[in-house]
Structure formats: C-alpha cells, structure tokens
C-alpha cells in the first residue's frame, strides 16, 4: 500500500505537467480556435465513411434520358429530356410521342417539349406502343403492364412475372407483348392472357402491321411471324441466310418490307416473303430500327451509332452523337431516337450530388477528401510520435550525460542536417516500393534532428539547476533523475515539439504523395492533387485543386495555432502585452 502511494507520488509531476499544456492551449485566444479546428478535422477523419457520399474509387455515372429528334428528313441535336435512361419510344403523330424507361419513368412529348407524367409503377419499363392518342400500353420488368386510357396510366393484371421486353398495339382489342423465355401475351380488349409459345428463347421486340399480322424477334436469331392467330417460323431466301445473334428490334413498312437488327451490327432485310442478310457497316450492337419509306430507313445503336438506308444499302452517318441509343420509332417521316446508357460523369463542377465535383474518371472528390483526412492524420500523428520519441530520448541522453556521448549524438544530428527530406524520400522509394511506411520512415528518420537539439539544450540548462544537484547529493541514480526530475520538466517542450511535428509531417506527407511517392490505392490530400496534375485537367478544374489544398492548410494551421499557444507556455517572455515587467531579461 505504502509502495503504491509512493509510485503514485512519483507519477504526479507527469500528470501535473500533462494538464498544463491543455490549459495553456485553451487559454490562448488563437489556441482555442486552433484546437477546435483540429478536433473538427479529427472528427472528419474518424467519421470519413459516414461523411463520404460516394465510394471514392467508383467511377460515378450520370444517368439521363436523351432524345434525338428526326424532323422533316433531318436528324436534330440530341438533348437531355429526363433524369433516367429511356428504353423505348412510341411516336403517335408528328406532334405527340411517349417514351418510357428506368424506374417507371414516362415522358410525354406534346410537340414542344417533354413532360414527365405520373407513373403507377417504379420499375423499369422496357417498351411502349400506342394504337391512338387515347389508347396505349407499356410493359416492363416482372411482367408489369400499364395501360393508358386517354386520361391516366394505370397498372393492369398480368398473367406472368417475367421480364416483358416488347409490346405492339395494333387495335383497341388486340395487342401482343413479348418477353424473356419465349413469353407471348395477348390482349383481347379486357384482359391479358398467355399464349402457347413456339419458342423458349427470349423475345425482344414485336411489330404489328395490322391486328392480324406481325413479327416477333429475339435471342439467337429468332424470327417468328404472326399470321391470323398462328405463329409461323420465318422463311429465308437461301440456306445461308439467317443469324445466330440476338435481335433487338424489328420494323415492317405498310408496303410489307422490313428490317430487323441486333448484336454485332447484324441487319436482316424482309422483302415481304423471305428474310435475307444485309451487309452492315457496323460491328457494334444496334438497338432500334425505323422506316420512313421504301428508300429511306434508319438504324440506331450504342455509342450514338446511326445507319442510313438509301434503298439499296446501309451506310454510317456521322451526327456527332456520343450517347447510346436504346430505341427508335419513326412514323409519318417523323420520329425520335431515344436512350442513353449511363455515361461517366467526368469533370463535373460541384453539384448537390457531388459537393466538390468529380475527377476525370468520374470519381467523387468530396469523398476522396474525406478519406484523405484519415491518411493525413494517421501519418501526421504516428510520424510525430515517432519523431518525438526519438528526439526526446536522444536529447535527454545527450544533454544529461554530455561528454563523448553528447558529441557523437550531435555529430549524427549534424549529418542528418545535411540530408534534404524530399530527395531522401525519393531515394527510399527508388530502392523500395511506394508505400505509406516509406513516407512515415522518411519523415521520421530525418526530422527528429530538430527535436533532439531543442530538447538537449533544455536538458543542459535543467541539469545545472539546484534541485537536480540536490537529488544527486541525495543519492538518486541517473535513471531516477532523468525520469523523475528532468522528464516532467521537458514535457511542455515535448508537447510543443509534438504539435510542430504533426504540422510538419502532414505537409511532408502531402508533398511526397503529390510527387507520386505514396501508395497508389490509398487516398490522401496529396495523392488527389497528384492525380489532378497527372490528368492535366486541373488547369481548368478548380474544384479538383482547391478543396484538398484548403484541407491541408486548415489542418496545418490548426496545429500551428496550438503550437503557438504552447510556445507561450515554454517561453514565458512571450506572455501578455507589453513585456515591461521587471525581471524580464
């Protein structure tokens, strides 16, 4: 018991000197905001996963619905018409169209602009078709079928739960819908029923020229004709015609000829009797077909592909579109190509979704900066502790024992002063691999020199004080004098050095990471700026440059303010206003 209280007494000076720095920081008019700022950044680092709105590695995609109008034989500029990708469009008349797409979006074009309509469902709609402006259907995922009755869209009962991909409405009492696994549904004017299917392959599109006649196309080159209630396999001109590629779209003209198209630029023609292969100028996926007249037809595809038919052959058109088409419908020489696959939201200026904008790879800068705070603080604090421990031990030993030990240690310090930090770290990376440890090691190995010098000079002056001499006379050993009498007295100075070292280490980490010496998959404020510089886009993308730099500066400022208030503690001459007090040397 007595032993225990004795030990407690020995530790007391440590606790006393531990409390003093915090009091000093809080008492200082600049130290207080500094410590508040530092605590805030500490919170940011701890709660980075919560604060980050996106995964910093993910390339963010923008999903918008776009439409390219085809008016009077001319393609017009593609424009954004909704905030979700569109899958299908139906042109009712030159002044009226509908488009449907992901999350149940329904857009209506009244001749001037696209307006979003209230939708009864929120799952992806794949296809839409109209018999008249007052009657149409749209179908989509999970067997969803919705009906437009001239007033509003409403969901109707579906006999299946399978993905439906195509619908055609040639009359008010006749409609066909097709979907995956060969599903074929028929509307008889009051309800949908499932028909016996001649195939088990996926069906992707259906086109009806009249209530009695139509064509269904689908996976692996499936083409099925519907003739007066019967399903008939397509006939081909020769044995060699036909395809094994998936077909995505089909259109038949009132005159009876038509086209179907699909994967890998596949195009098949229909002459009214037989299907035949056509040579295609494209090898990428084609998604929509629309016929103007016997001498004019269009096919659209991914990446803004538009192909034109001049009555004999298909040729590529360069219209400068870049977004992918998902569907095309042309009626009475007027139509829309619609779609867009998600595209990468690159170099976006700050928006509500991306508070600091995005990088050239569509990555969210806000989230990167949030995660970057972790790297900065971990490196800053770990390195500062390392530096301080080395510095204090060497300073204590050097200052207390003096003589030869001191001489050797201080010559080592002199040598360390000859090494420039950044080149030293660069050499380390050249020899080893870039990693966080190399950065910590480089900063740690080089910056203890200052700490050691400062601690040493403090110890040198402490050793001459009477109470140390008294302790020595009382028979205290070296270790005891160092630990019990000297160490507590250099704690405030060590604290100050710790704060300075944190600031220095954070700047050094940012600098080395900026030079590309940091680990590549870990975000730090320096690596963000490194990526920005590598991309070349930073010269205009201010939102990419400013946030990480401001965060570095604020963090370092906060520790500087803290260290400044600690300086007052270790150097009482800095205290108060005009230092005219008697005794101030």
């Amino acid at each position, binding site marked *: 018991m007595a032993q225990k209280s004795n030990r407690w007494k020995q530790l007391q000076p440590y606790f006393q000197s531990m409390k003093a720095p915090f009091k000093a920081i809080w008492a200082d008019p*600049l130290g207080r905001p500094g410590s508040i700022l530092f605590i805030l950044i500490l919170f940011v680092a701890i709660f980075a996963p919560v604060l980050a709105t996106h995964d910093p590695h993910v390339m963010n995609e923008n999903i918008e619905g776009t439409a390219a109008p085809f008016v009077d034989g001319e393609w017009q500029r593609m424009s954004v018409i909704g905030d979700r990708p569109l899958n299908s469009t139906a042109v009712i008349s030159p002044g009226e169209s509908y488009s449907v797409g992901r999350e149940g979006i329904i857009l209506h074009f009244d001749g001037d602009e696209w307006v979003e309509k209230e939708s009864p469902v929120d799952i992806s709609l794949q296809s839409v078709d109209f018999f008249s402006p007052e009657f149409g259907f749209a179908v989509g995922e999970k067997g969803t079928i919705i009906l437009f009755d001239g007033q509003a869209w409403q969901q109707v009962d579906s006999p299946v739960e399978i993905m439906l991909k195509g619908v055609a409405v040639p009359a008010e009492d006749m409609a066909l819908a097709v979907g995956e696994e060969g599903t074929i549904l028929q509307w008889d004017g009051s309800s949908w029923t499932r028909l016996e299917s001649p195939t088990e392959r996926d069906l992707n599109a259906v086109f009806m020229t009249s209530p009695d006649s139509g064509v269904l196309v689908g996976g692996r080159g499936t083409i099925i004709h519907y003739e007066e209630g019967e399903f008939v396999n397509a006939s081909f001109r020769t044995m060699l015609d036909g395809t094994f590629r998936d077909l995505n779209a089909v259109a038949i003209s009132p005159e009876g000829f038509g086209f179907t198209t699909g994967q890998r630029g596949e195009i098949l023609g229909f002459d009214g009797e037989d299907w035949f292969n056509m040579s295609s100028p494209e090898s990428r996926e084609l998604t929509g077909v629309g016929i103007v007249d016997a001498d004019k037809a269009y096919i659209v595809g991914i990446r803004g592909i538009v192909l034109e038919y001049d009555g004999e052959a298909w040729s590529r058109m360069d219209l400068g579109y870049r977004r992918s088409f998902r569907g095309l419908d042309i009626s009475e020489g007027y139509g829309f190509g619609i779609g867009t696959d998600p595209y990468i939201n690159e170099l976006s200026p700050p928006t509500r979704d991306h508070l600091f904008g995005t990088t050239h790879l569509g990555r969210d800068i806000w989230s990167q900066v949030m995660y970057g705070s972790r790297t900065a603080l971990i490196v800053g604090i770990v390195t500062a502790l390392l530096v301080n421990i080395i510095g204090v031990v060497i300073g204590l030993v050097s200052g207390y024992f003096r003589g030869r030990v001191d*001489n050797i240690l*201080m*010559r080592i310090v*002199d*040598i360390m*002063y*000859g*090494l*420039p*930090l*950044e*080149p*030293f770290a*660069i*050499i380390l*990376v*050249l*020899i080893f691999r870039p990693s966080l440890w190399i950065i910590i090691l480089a900063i740690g190995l080089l910056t203890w020199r*200052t700490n050691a010098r400062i601690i040493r000079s403090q110890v040198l002056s402490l050793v001459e004080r009477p109470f140390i001499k008294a302790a020595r006379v009382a028979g205290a050993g070296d270790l005891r004098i160092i630990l019990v009498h000297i160490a507590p007295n250099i704690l405030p100075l060590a604290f100050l050095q710790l704060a300075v070292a944190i*600031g220095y280490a954070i*700047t050094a980490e*940012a*600098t080395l990471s*900026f*030079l*590309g010496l940091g680990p590549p998959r870990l975000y730090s404020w*320096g690596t963000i*700026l490194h990526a920005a*510089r590598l991309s070349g886009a*930073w*010269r*205009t993308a*201010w939102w990419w*440059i*400013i946030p*990480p*730099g401001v965060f*570095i*500066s*604020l*963090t*370092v*400022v906060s520790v*500087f*303010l803290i260290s*400044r208030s600690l300086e007052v503690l270790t150097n009482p*001459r*800095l205290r108060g*206003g*005009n*230092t*005219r*007090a008697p005794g*101030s*040397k």
Partner: protein
Amino acid sequence: MGKKEFIIRRLLQMVVTFLIILTGLFFVFRLALPDPTSALVMEGLSAEAQAMVRARFGLDRPLWQQYFIYLGNFFQGEFGMSFHYRSAIAPIVWEKMLNTLVLMFPAIIISYSTGPILGVILSWRRGSRVEYSGIVGGLFLRSAPVFWTGMIFIMLFGITLGILPTSGMRTLPYEATGFLDKVFTLDFLWHLILPAMTIAIYYMALPMLIMRNTMLEVMGEDFIELCQAKGLSERVIMYKHAARNALLPVVTQAAITIGLAVGGQVVVEVVFSWPGLGREIIQSVRTSDFPMAQACFMLMAGMVMVMNFLADLLYGYLDPRVVYQKGGK
C-alpha cells in the same frame, strides 16, 4: 579559438559529413542493385562481352576497391553514366544545378528581405487588427503546401488571366549558347516570376513571425528604454536598434530553412516544369536511373551543407557576442 580556426573546423566537418553520406549512399544503392551490369548491358550479350564491360567499369574488383574508385571519381566530378540518357552524368547535372540555384536564390532573397520587415511592422502594431490578421495570414501561407499555391498561381495567372508563363525556363523553341546566354534575357525573367514568387511567399511567413516574436522580446530590454530616454524617434528605435538585435534568431532559422528549401524546391520544379535537380531526381526514379539519382542527391545534400555553412558564418558576423568555442552550438 579564433574565427579562422572555426571556419576551418567547420569546413572539415562538412567534408566528413559529405563523405559519410556519400558512403552511406554507395552501400545503400549496392544493396538495392547488387549487379549494376544488368542495368548497363543489353540482354543476350555473351559472357565474354559482359566480363569486358565489367572490367571496363571496374565491377570485377572487390567491393572496397570499387568504393574507393567511386570516391575518387566523385571528387573529380566524374559521376558515371546515366542509364536513361546513355551519356555522362556530370555535364547534365551541373547545368540542372545551376538552373535550380538561379530559381532558388532570388526566391530566398525576396522572402528573407521582406519577411523580417513585415515582422517589424507586425510587432509595431501590437494588439491591433493588423497584427492579428498578419499572424493568421502568415500561418496560413506557411501551412499551405508550396506545390498547391504554385498550382493555384498557375491557374490564376497562367490560365485564367493568361499573363504569365507557367512552365519551363524559356519560351520554346529557343537557342542559347551557354547558361549565361540562357539566363540573361527578359524571357527568362518572365518565366522566373511565378515559381520564384511561389517559393518566396511560402518562406516569407517564417522570418516574419519569428521577427515579430523576437522584436517583442527585444522591446522589453533596457537599451530600448535608454534609446527612448535619449529622445530617438520611434522609427529609428525600431529599425536601427531593435530590429538589428532581433535579426539573430531569424538568421538561425534561415540556416535550417534554407537547408529545407533545397528539398522543398523539388516539388516547385515539378509543378512549374523547371528543368532543375529536383525534377531530374524525380525523373530518375521513374526511369530507375540509379547513377543519376545518386548524383542529384549528393549535389542537393552538398547544397544543403554549403547553405548551412554560409548561414553559420553570417550568424557570427551579425552577432559579435558569438564566441567560437569547442563543443558545437
């Protein structure tokens, strides 16, 4: 011990330090690249031809002999062959070093001539809003990483306003017969403005803040009171008597800071595509050009040591109280 002895001792110490670093570097590089022949010769070279290359470069001798050859060559200014350029390193590196110095000196001179003056002004306006904002502004400038301010400057002056060049030392293409020919042109000065200002602003804050602190200390001393009693004007007391005495810690700090600046220079050279030592050492890491990295590093370390030495001399010159005695500082 006199001044002369101090200088000689300090010079000797410098040479020893340099030697130790050089030795360390030699063995560290040998550890990383045990057989430099593999980097020098093409693959598929016959064994005899490889042996010839080894003999030519002295790589067939024992390590300690190689070490002395290396030392001898280094002090003759012979740094070896660059893996990347496939030519002698020395002429390349000397030019890069001049390029570095020509950027660094103006910047350091600007920061250490304006910084202390600003510090005097701050201490003069003690307790005012000027002082407060000066401290916070100074701390912020010192905290903002120098490469970041450089990037902001490039964006602001180079891209948005389009008034200053942002990369290189001269407008390309240019012809120059020598280093002096390259540097003594308006075009060069024009290219110097942004990088030099970036460095100067970064290093200005520290002397300013230190100057303010020591000025406040000095103002409490007796001789200031004496000056006031003599009826000297505030201005004269400030600049002639107080500032001169407060300059000392600034110089001490300068010794350390200028040493650090040699390393900090790397990042500025990278941002401004300044063809100096720093950019070269980064490039040598990318191309695994070991001898080049070694030469650049030693030159930079040498620069640091020379700067520290000069600062020490200046310190003694400024403070007559300094006694050169044994035992180091």
